[in-house]
């Protein structure tokens, strides 16, 4: 039970310092560690480099850390949904490094797997490859990309058991499993903590070895683009 913490602030206690690098799971607002992001805000930590596919929306998700100007740099693939992000970026208050989404995912996977760099065809001949080594393999050019690790990974999963074995739910999985492997410390926010043995070992997505701390929360799970169809009336 030593991995289980009573709330998000307790789960982050002692882990934050100014200038740190934080990986934060999620795609858009789907599968983001909402309460841990709020916990980072409450910690007052400053000058964070955040590695996350997106930057939240105004006032929610990582948008909360932008409002308080706690983020110095973002490494992301797409940041279109956030006015405060735009303002800070255009004002030169915020650094931004764009990575192609698959390159970002693989950099995190590689970092967590102890692979310092890899070659990919993604981005060859574009701005993304500028200043990077390009090498030919079997007649095709590939650009070298480096692995990413972080001082802290904050991750959202659906369920954890008491030892930190994780199960994700639907497309809320996204970047969370790789980030769990690439944090020097990994803190996971879940909807339910279940006793050891209640998840079939064959159904565990992320083994508990990657998980240092767990907190059960009730998340809002805001939807960015609620898109529905109408039932045909009988």
């Amino acid at each position, binding site marked *: 039970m030593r991995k289980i913490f009573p709330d998000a602030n307790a789960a982050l206690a002692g882990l934050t310092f100014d200038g740190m690098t934080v990986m934060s799971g999620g795609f858009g607002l789907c599968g983001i560690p909402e309460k841990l992001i709020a916990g980072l805000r409450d910690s007052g930590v400053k000058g964070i480099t955040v590695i996350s*596919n997106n930057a939240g929306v105004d006032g929610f998700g990582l948008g909360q850390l932008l409002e308080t100007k706690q983020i110095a740099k973002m490494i992301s693939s797409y940041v279109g949904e956030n006015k405060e992000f735009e303002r800070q970026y255009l004002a030169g208050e915020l650094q931004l490094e764009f990575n192609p989404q698959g390159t970002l995912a693989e950099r995190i996977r590689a970092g967590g797997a102890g692979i310092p760099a890899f070659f990919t065809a993604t981005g060859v001949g574009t701005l993304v490859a500028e200043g990077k080594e390009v090498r030919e393999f079997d007649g095709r050019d590939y650009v070298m990309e480096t692995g990413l690790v972080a001082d802290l990974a904050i991750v959202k999963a659906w369920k954890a058991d008491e030892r930190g074995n994780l199960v994700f739910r639907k497309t809320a999985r996204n970047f969370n*499993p790789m980030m769990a492997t690439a944090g020097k410390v990994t803190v996971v926010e879940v909807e339910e903590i279940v006793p050891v043995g209640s998840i079939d070992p064959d159904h565990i997505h992320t083994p508990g070895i990657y998980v240092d701390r767990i907190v059960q929360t009730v998340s809002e799970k805001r939807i960015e683009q609620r898109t529905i169809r109408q039932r045909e009336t009988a």
Partner: protein
Amino acid sequence: MARTREQLAERAALELQDGFYVNLGIGIPTLVANYIPDGMEVTLQSENGMLGMGPFPYDDEVDADLINAGKQTITEIPESSYFSSSDSFAMIRGGHINLSILGAMEVAENGDIANWMIPGKLVKGMGGAMDLVAGVKRVVVVMDHANKHGQSKVLKDCTLPLTGTGVVSRIITDLCVFDVKPEGKGLELIELADGVTLEEVASKTEAGYTVAAGLKS
């Protein structure tokens, strides 16, 4: 008559084949899903981590944990599977996806594509576009022939920062269809939309191209 958005999507759907795994971009490409022929087995991939995308949900089925790459709520179907972003892009980068249908700002006669950045305007990011064009076996672009200023989007050379080089196989526009010949051999005009003439395409296309044998106005 130039094709409408729906007609563009309907024409793009002719690129689908039975058994294909397909990634559709945002915008007109997304509409292609509405024109998958009955009985054809086509599996749609969403790069945020899903194969086998279902339709939009009914109001009481909406699930915040189930979205597509455009962040719209969707549904699962019996053959659906979920996976991580790194697995998703392993599928894409590893050449396991048969076809990607994407929009573009510019395409060049050598198959270069630009669709993520306009210098001087706020850049939102490339998302998965660079991975898709580099990794998917066949990339088909669906777009308007001209931009809102009436300038050709089919060019000798792209002017905007590139998404990928030499990656596009076919360009479907509201006026016509071009094949991008391999090894930088340029474009071939292979179809005209109903009511569109060779002269109209010639007057609205900056890129050089050949005309397929037998293609008449």
